[in-house]
């Protein structure tokens, strides 16, 4: 199961940060506003192969089946993972050292996904999660096309685009 971000939907409300902090004591997701025109939730993408796991000499970050696993006891705090991560998603927290998303293994769906008012965080297996994004994008493209070609707007039923 994977967590994916639909940046087009983020409303910069900080709900995911507070939910993550509530569950983990410190937030492992962070919202970055870009020029006050968009907002990007920054969190671990659980890459495969993961650059952070590749550079981790202490064995704290390891490649799991569908996630990158972090074991705090093994961490030497060398910081190489922070440099290696292309998404800025590994960082040193204020109190508890390295912080990285663990996909809330004790929950069926991660807290940030459940709490996201705008459904900008999408959870599912690879086909499912990208399918939601594809359908949302298709809906938008269809509208833009209809508008640009002078056609009537395509009014879709609930669930017609983007929703299960």
């Amino acid at each position, binding site marked *: 199961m994977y967590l994916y971000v639909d940046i087009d*939907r983020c*409303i*910069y*409300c*900080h*709900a995911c*940060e*507070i*939910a993550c*902090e*509530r569950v983990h004591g410190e937030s492992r997701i962070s919202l970055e506003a870009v*020029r*006050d*025109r*968009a*907002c990007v939730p920054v969190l671990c993408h659980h890459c495969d192969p993961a650059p952070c796991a590749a550079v981790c000499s202490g064995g704290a970050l390891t490649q799991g089946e569908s996630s990158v696993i972090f074991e705090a006891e093994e961490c030497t705090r060398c910081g190489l993972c922070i440099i290696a991560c292309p998404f800025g998603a590994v960082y040193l927290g204020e109190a508890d050292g390295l912080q990285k998303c663990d996909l809330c293994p004790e929950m069926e769906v991660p*807290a940030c996904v*459940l*709490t*996201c*008012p*705008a*459904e900008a965080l999408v959870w599912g297996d690879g086909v499912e999660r990208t399918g939601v994004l594809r*359908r*949302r994008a298709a*809906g*938008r493209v*269809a*509208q833009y096309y*209809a508008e640009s070609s002078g056609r009537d*707007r*395509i*009014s*879709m*039923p*609930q669930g*017609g*685009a*983007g*929703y299960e």
Partner: protein
Amino acid sequence: MADERLVPTVCPYCALGCGFYIKINEGGPMIEYMLDHPTNEGSLCAKGNASMEIINHPDRLRHPLKKTEAGWSRISWDEALATVAGKIGETVRDHGPDALGFLGSAKSTNEENYLFQKMARTLGSKNVDCCARRCHSPTIPAFKRALGASCMTNPISDLANSDCIFVIGSNFAENHPIVARWALRAKDRGAKIVVADPRITPTTWHADLHLQIKLGTDVALLNGMMNVIIDEGLWDRKFVADRTVGFEALVDKVAGYTPDKVSGIIGSTPEAIVRAARIYAGSDSSAIVYSMGITQHSHGTNNVTACADLALLTGQLGRSGAGLYPLRGQNNVQGACDMGVLADFYPGSVSVHDPRAVQLIEEAWGTGPLPMGMGMTAETMPVAAASGNLRFLYIIGEDLVNSDSSSSRGRRELESLDFMVVQDIFMTDTAEMADLVLPAAAWAEKEGTFTSSERRVQWSPKALDPPGEARSDLSTILDLARLLGLDFDYAGPEEVLAEIGRVVPSYAGISMARAEERGGVIWPCPFQDHPGTPILHQEGFTAPGGKARIVPVDYLPPAEEATLDYPLLLTTGREALHHNAGSMTRRSFSLMKRAPELFVEMNPLDADRWSIIADDLVEVETRRGAAWARARVTTRQEEGVIFMPFHFPETNMLTSDVIDPEARIPEFKVAACRIGSMKGVI
């Protein structure tokens, strides 16, 4: 002991009525998402997620406190209530009941609010009000006149069925994030989102069309859109003919509001005005979403009226996806209004000027004649205190001095009171001014119903015990009423709710059992097995004759404009991580960490002009006072207009005290100001 239980609750912050569970186990209360709640489907905003931080906060008031020369001194509940009852008795004896003022709380339950105003009015005082005065008070008379019912017409989730969502004066992405869930689903279906807002906000990010209008020019825009709609024949002839009156006068009124002329007033292009009008009128079902950007003006009632006119002209009401959405701010502000905690209304929106309707309430209560006529409002009570007409003030759950406009004046005025008692969960700045402070239970520490913005009445059970000797407002009011010799004989909130059902027709079918069901009941629910009424105005209107009234209004400029001395305009609003006057969110660790201080947003051109760089401490000064805030230099803000959130006490020291003549709401949204940095360049 593994005594773990899940107690459903209703979020204590804004008025959307989101549900979640409080999980109680030995580790302390935790939040669990309620995936089957009809409004939020489990999701919660930042504040909802942080709400447990309030419950166990060390600042919670735990004991009744009396102000002495040596500071606050702990007293017993018996002494506290006897003091309050004694002061009420003295005040009535020496100055009459109209020297008593009562400010109820939009955070208290319906049952608490109902009893509070019943106590006040049974004592003979008509001075009952609540914070709705400075939030949606214009919606009440404007909707009552136009539609007959002063509330949101459709459920929040029904926005997903809209083909056009016209947002004017609301930044719901930050302030009511759950609204964005449904608006974005509508967008997935092909709906257009049109936003009129002087600022660029996360709401405007998602707009298909953003009209960045000048402050307070909403009526000009709305009249301009109606001009286009009439000119192009886009209005709903059948709806207007069958269901409204007043159309001809509207045609005359808006004839002068051509797109070219309006463009000059609002600062958007004529093409944008035309496009907005076509999208709104031409969509199968369109919704208007508005909030404080419409109401908090010296002509707020006109602003709301023009919104209603637009919906009536185009028949965008009374159907799924078509409606008017005044987004309300406090978890029970709709309920407090329904319960008559307003200077102009008895419970059930019964006008204080309607002797026959008030007589029915007298009969239901078994009292003698009840006071008639407009009472003092939240805004006029401090003024009356200064002039000696108000001697005693009882405030529940409201930080009046930080919420009021031009707040330094309000503070001085309240000092003239003979006695002030404040009942709250924290020692707010208002409580600091009181003679007596009573500790209150927070929402999850008591039971009763809350009515959300979408008229959803939900029972919120008690999940936790209040700290120390804190008590529910209900038990405090009941004990005080008994001391005052009033016949308040209720075993608990369930019995009060039953009485509410007998007095307020739209609550007649709402029992505790119904309100306890998932999602509760949406009023009007006039009898026991009635399913509730999610969409209003489907058949007729409750206005006289069953027809809605189109009331043409003219554009009036804001009371203050930029001058040589005060060359900028200050507008105020909310940010995602804080709530209202901030007495809760400023005590919430996870929120404060991210939004620790007051800021002022300004355009880079203005920053340059006054030699301000980002993160400077800036002094903002208006005719009422001056305050310091941290500079945020951003193109979110148009040149000439600066923005400050009102969650920190300083902001309202600056705001205007010019009020709307009918709703008596102050013009929080426009104040002429000047700025200077610490470096002393003015």
